[in-house]
C-alpha cells in the first residue's frame, strides 16, 4: 500500500487496573475516566495509535463499558470510521456459561478468528491507564530493527504508591523488568523495591501470527495472564526487547495519583510535554467558549470550554461545562464535566465526578494527601 501507515493493528484493554480506582469506575471503566479537562484516558492511547498510522483498532471491553461506548461512538473523532479496519469494539460474548474475561489471554482468545483474518503483520497491545502521547511508529520500528519476538515499553521511575498498596490476594499485577542492554532477562511480578525501576507500561509489539500461536497454546493450557503465563516463563526461549518511553506519562494508580496527575498539568512544562506532540482527539461536545463574568477571579487554572465562572478559582482543573456561582471559592480542585458549584460554596482539595451539584454555601475541605471525592450525579 502506498502510505506511511504502520503495518500494525492495535488492541486496547480498557478495563485493566479498574480496581485501583473503585470510586471512579463505579459507573465506568479505566479507559473512560475523565482526565486533563476535556479528555478520557483512552483518548491518549487511541490518538497515539491513530497519529502513527494505526487505523485498525480493537477495544476489548469487559464490564461497565456503557460510558466508553457513548464516548467512542463510531470512532469518527479519531478518524476511525473506516471501511477497512477502523474502530472495532468487542464486548464479552455471552454464552451458556456467562463469564467475563479474566485476563489478556482469555480476552485475546475471544478474537482469534478476527486476528487470523487481518492483514497487518504486527500487533500492538496496550492498556488505557496511562495518559501519554506515545510514539507507536518509533516503537514498532524499534521492534522490527531489534529482530525480537516481543517488544515491551517501559518507563524508568519509582513504583507508584498506588501499586505498592496492592493486597497480595488482589488479582492486579504490575511488572518491572530486569534488563541486559535492551534485552529483558527477568520480569518481576508485583515487586516492592524502592528507587527508580524499569516499570512496564504493558504496551507490547509482536507479529500477529506469533501472537495468535502464543494465545492459542496458552488458552488451551488454561492460562490467563499474558505477562505472568506467557512472557515470564519463556524468557529463556523468547527474545523480549525493551523499549524505553521517554515521553511524559501520567499513570493512574489510585485516587491520589488521579488528583496529582491532573494538578501537575497546571505547570506549563508538563502541559506542553503531554500535548505539544501530535494532537489528542476526543469526543466533541460543541460547548460555547468559557465565560468569565464580572466578579470572577481565576489564578492558575486550566479550564475547558462551556464553563461559566462567576466566583473565585485557584489552582484547579475545570472540565467542560462547569458552573461556578457568585462568591464561590474553588481552590486545589478537580471538577469534572457539568459540575455545578452554587453561590457562596467553598471547596478545597475536592474532586467532583460528572454532574455533581454543590449547593449554595456548602464548605468542603479535603487535604493534599486525602482529597474529598463526590460521586457522579451526587448533590452535596
Amino acid at each position, binding site marked *: 500500500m502506498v502510505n506511511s501507515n504502520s503495518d500494525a493493528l492495535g488492541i486496547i484493554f480498557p478495563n485493566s487496573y479498574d480496581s485501583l480506582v473503585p470510586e471512579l469506575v463505579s459507573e465506568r471503566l479505566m479507559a473512560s475516566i475523565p482526565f486533563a*479537562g476535556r479528555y478520557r484516558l483512552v483518548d491518549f492511547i487511541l490518538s497515539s495509535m491513530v497519529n502513527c498510522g494505526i487505523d485498525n483498532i480493537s477495544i476489548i471491553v469487559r464490564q461497565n463499558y456503557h460510558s466508553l461506548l457513548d464516548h467512542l461512538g463510531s470512532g469518527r473523532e479519531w478518524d476511525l470510521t473506516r471501511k477497512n479496519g477502523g474502530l472495532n469494539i468487542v464486548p464479552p460474548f455471552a454464552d451458556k456459561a456467562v463469564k467475563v474475561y479474566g485476563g489478556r489471554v482469555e480476552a485475546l482468545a475471544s478474537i482469534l478468528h478476527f486476528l487470523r483474518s487481518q492483514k497487518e503483520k504486527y500487533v500492538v497491545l496496550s492498556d488505557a491507564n496511562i495518559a501519554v502521547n506515545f510514539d507507536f511508529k518509533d516503537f514498532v520500528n524499534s521492534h522490527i530493527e531489534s529482530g525480537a519476538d516481543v517488544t515491551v515499553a517501559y518507563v524508568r521511575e519509582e513504583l507508584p504508591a498506588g501499586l505498592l498498596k496492592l493486597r497480595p490476594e488482589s488479582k492486579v499485577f504490575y511488572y518491572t523488568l530486569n534488563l541486559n542492554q535492551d534485552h529483558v532477562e527477568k520480569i518481576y511480578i508485583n515487586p516492592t523495591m524502592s528507587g527508580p525501576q524499569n516499570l512496564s507500561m504493558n504496551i507490547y509489539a509482536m507479529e500477529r501470527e506469533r501472537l495468535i500461536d502464543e494465545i492459542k497454546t496458552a488458552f488451551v493450557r488454561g492460562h490467563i495472564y499474558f505477562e505472568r503465563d506467557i512472557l515470564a516463563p519463556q524468557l529463556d526461549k523468547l527474545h523480549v526487547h525493551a523499549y524505553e518511553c521517554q515521553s511524559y506519562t501520567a499513570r493512574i494508580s489510585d485516587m491520589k495519583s488521579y488528583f496529582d496527575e491532573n494538578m501537575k498539568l497546571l505547570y506549563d512544562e508538563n502541559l506542553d510535554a503531554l500535548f505539544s506532540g501530535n494532537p489528542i482527539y476526543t469526543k466533541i461536545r*460543541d460547548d*460555547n467558549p*468559557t465565560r468569565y463574568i464580572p466578579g470572577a477571579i481565576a489564578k492558575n487554572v486550566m*479550564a*475547558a*470550554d462551556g464553563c461559566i465562572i462567576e466566583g473565585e478559582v485557584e489552582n484547579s482543573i475545570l472540565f467542560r461545562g462547569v458552573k461556578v456561582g457568585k462568591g464561590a471559592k474553588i481552590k486545589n480542585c478537580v471538577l469534572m464535566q457539568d459540575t455545578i458549584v452554587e453561590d457562596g460554596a467553598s471547596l478545597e482539595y475536592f474532586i467532583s465526578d460528572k454532574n455533581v451539584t454543590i449547593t449554595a454555601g456548602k464548605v468542603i475541605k479535603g487535604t493534599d494527601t486525602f482529597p474529598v471525592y463526590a460521586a457522579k450525579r451526587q448533590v452535596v
Partner: protein
Amino acid sequence: MAKEMIAMLLAGGQGSRLYALTQKLAKPAVPFGGKYRIIDFPLSNCINSGIDTVGILTQYQPLVLNEYIGNGQPWDLDRLHGGVHVLPPYQQASGSDWYKGTANAIYQNISFIERYNPQYVIILSGDQICKQDYSDFLRFHKEKNAEFSVAVMEVPWEEAPRFGLMVTDENDKITEFQEKPKNPKSNLASMGIYIFNWDILKKYLIEDEADPESENDFGNNIIPNLLRDNRNMYAYHFSGYWKDVGTISSLWEANMEVLDPEHSGINLFDDDWKIYSRNSGMTGHKITGSAIVENSMITDGCRIAGDVKHSILFAGVRVEPGAKVQDAVIMGGTVIKAGAVVEHCIIAENVVIGENAQVGAMPDADEGSVATVGPGIYVGANAKIGPNAMVSQNVKGGEEQW
C-alpha cells in the same frame, strides 16, 4: 424522496467592507464569538429546525470556506440523501457565468433543487448573526397559505431608511416593498430570509433570467415582480437577536454583545439551540497565577499570562506576561507578546503583536473606531497601530501606522 423544504444559503458575498479580514476569506467564513464562523449560525439554525439539505452558493475566495464546510459533519449535515453541498458557479455547454446576482445564483442551481423536489425553498444569507427557528417561519408560511414569505424585524423609525422595508396590512400581507426609501411607510425591515413555494420561485427565476434589464437580485427584481402579480406575500415577524455583521464596527459590536447575553439577547449558552462549529481540538485553556481575566470569553488552547478584560479570545491565543488586552476580538493562533497593549480592536488569525507594541486605543467619546489587523500579520516590537488603522501588511518594529 422529496424533501418538504431545503435551504439555499447565499455565501458569495465579498465582504469588501471588512477589508483586511476578507482579502483571502469569504465573509461567511469570518470567525465570530470565540469559536465560531459566521456561517455556523445559519447552518446550525437549519439542522436545529430540521432542515437537512443545504446548498451553499459561493464564488469569492472559497478555499477556507470549502475546507471548513467539508462533508458537513460538524453540523450533522453529512447525509446519504441531502446534506450540505457547496455550489460554486460552473461551466455549462452554453458557456460559464459567474453568479450575476442573488437570484441568478439560485437560477443557476435549479437542477440542484429539483433533485430534492421540495415543496418549499428557504433562502438564507451567510453574513448575519441570528438564532432563528426556520420551522416556525415555515409554519407561518403554511398557515397564511403564502406563496412567498419574508422574515422581518421591527427597526427604529429613524433607522428605517437604511433597510428594505415591507409595508403590510393588518393580516401581515405585504402590500408594498420600499428599498431604502427616504420616506418610509413601514418600519418592518427585511432580514433577507425568504420562504418560497418552489413552483413559484422557479417560475419567477426563469422569467427574471429572460429579462436582459434585470439585475437578477431578490430585493430589486424578484420581490417587485411578485408584488406586480399580486402574489400571496406575507411578512413573518422575528423578534430575536439579529445582526448584519458586514462592517468592522458591527462585527466588533456583535462580538462584544456576546459578552453580555443578558442584555444583548445573543445567548450562545443555549443547550436547546446549540451553535455547532468545526472544533480546534486543542486542550483546555490555561490561566496562570499572574494573569487577570475579567468579563471575557476564552476558549480551548489559549494561554493567558497577561491582563484580559472585556475581550473575546479564539482558540490558541497566547497573551504573554505584562501584555494588556481590552475590548478586543482576538482570532485564533494570535500571539500578544510581553508588554504589548491591545485595545478596542479586531486582530485576525495567526497575527504576532511584538513586545511593547500598541494596537488601537480606548475611545474618548462613545463612538470609537476599531483598529483592525489582518491575518498572518507581524507587528514588530514597539510599533504603534492607531485606532483608525486597517493593517494588511507587516509593520516593522518601532514603526507607526494610523
